[in-house]
């Protein structure tokens, strides 16, 4: 493994732990469904052995398809988790923000779903890259998701629990925008010193979205 001295701080370890717990929980669910389908095949075989009812080929094919579906879900999740796990191996480089948003969204789907929040990621019209450490950028995007979920949890009851992520390029550089249906909670975003430090590491800052409700994470240009 390349050594770029990118050891995450305690907060980074917490982020890694949170996503690992969510992913392993999902994996357990996939295994539970595969286990029950295997059990059902065993039940059918048992009935066929002990009585005149043969195994229905259509039923067997359906069970096989259900097992394949869960294996595909698990495979997709493991691939994403593997990419996430290797994000610490990379030195600072040009990172595609859209790709990173999709990765965090996929891995934290369970966490977002628990808040009953519906997430949509719109495709970027132009490549949206930033010079950053992958792991830090993933962490920052995850913190943004956590904050949006918290805002929507505490928003007035009639607020739609929907978030749309879109990508833009303001005159100063690339940005990721998180759009939702309430103006509450904006003033305290990324107030925590740990979140501020994370923003600094990725060379980004927060600004209120130009149109609609929400906020954007934008590239910060340091003065020479």
């Amino acid at each position, binding site marked *: 493994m390349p050594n770029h001295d990118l050891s995450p701080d305690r907060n980074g370890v917490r982020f890694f732990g949170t996503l690992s*717990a969510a992913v*392993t*929980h999902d994996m*357990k*669910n996939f*295994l*539970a*469904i*595969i*286990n*029950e*389908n295997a*059990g*059902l095949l065993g*039940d059918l075989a048992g009935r066929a052995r002990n009585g005149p009812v043969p195994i229905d080929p259509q039923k067997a094919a359906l069970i096989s398809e*259900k097992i394949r*579906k*869960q294996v595909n879900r698990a495979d997709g999740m493991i691939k994403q988790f593997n990419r996430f796990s290797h994000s610490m191996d990379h030195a600072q480089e040009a990172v595609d923000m859209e790709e990173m948003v999709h990765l965090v969204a996929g891995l934290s789907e369970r966490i977002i*779903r*628990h*808040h*009953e929040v519906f997430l949509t990621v719109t495709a970027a019209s132009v490549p949206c890259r930033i010079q950053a450490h992958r792991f830090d950028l993933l962490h920052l995007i995850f913190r943004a998701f956590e904050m949006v979920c918290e805002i929507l949890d505490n928003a007035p009851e009639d607020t739609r629990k929907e978030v749309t992520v879109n990508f833009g390029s303001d005159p100063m550089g690339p940005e990721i925008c998180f759009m939702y249906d309430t103006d509450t909670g904006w003033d305290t975003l990324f107030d925590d010193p740990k979140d501020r430090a994370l923003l600094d590491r990725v060379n980004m800052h927060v600004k209120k979205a130009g149109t609609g409700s929400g906020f954007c994470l934008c590239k910060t240009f340091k003065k020479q």
Partner: protein
Amino acid sequence: MSEKVLLVDDEKDFLDIMSERMQARGMTVKTADSADKALAMLENESFDAIVMDFKMPGMDGIQALKNIKTQKPELQIILLTGYATVEKTVEAMKIGATDLLEKPADLEALAAKIKQAKAEKMLLVEKQTEEKIKDILQRFGG
């Protein structure tokens, strides 16, 4: 008489396959994909046991457990979870869960626990009835 079970999980595929296998073992099974829906079903229907996922969107397992136990204290609740930590198990048991099983669970073990849960529920109902009769006799019989 067969056991009547309410199965609660946010994974539809899991609900479908579990209910099919449980029904094949003679149980009567109804399903709900959230704790809120399960609570609504409990208002109109009676069950011997609830088999419920611990982590679901919306109301979490602990809160659902508290609400169900307030509504129907005699109801036996078996929790299913991805990971059963000691702390989580202790907390669930303190609130009144009958048992906590890890996913993927062995169906025969779960079926045995459901049978046991039904027996415990019947004992509790009998006890509640006895107490009611005792109370009525005390009030009217002097």
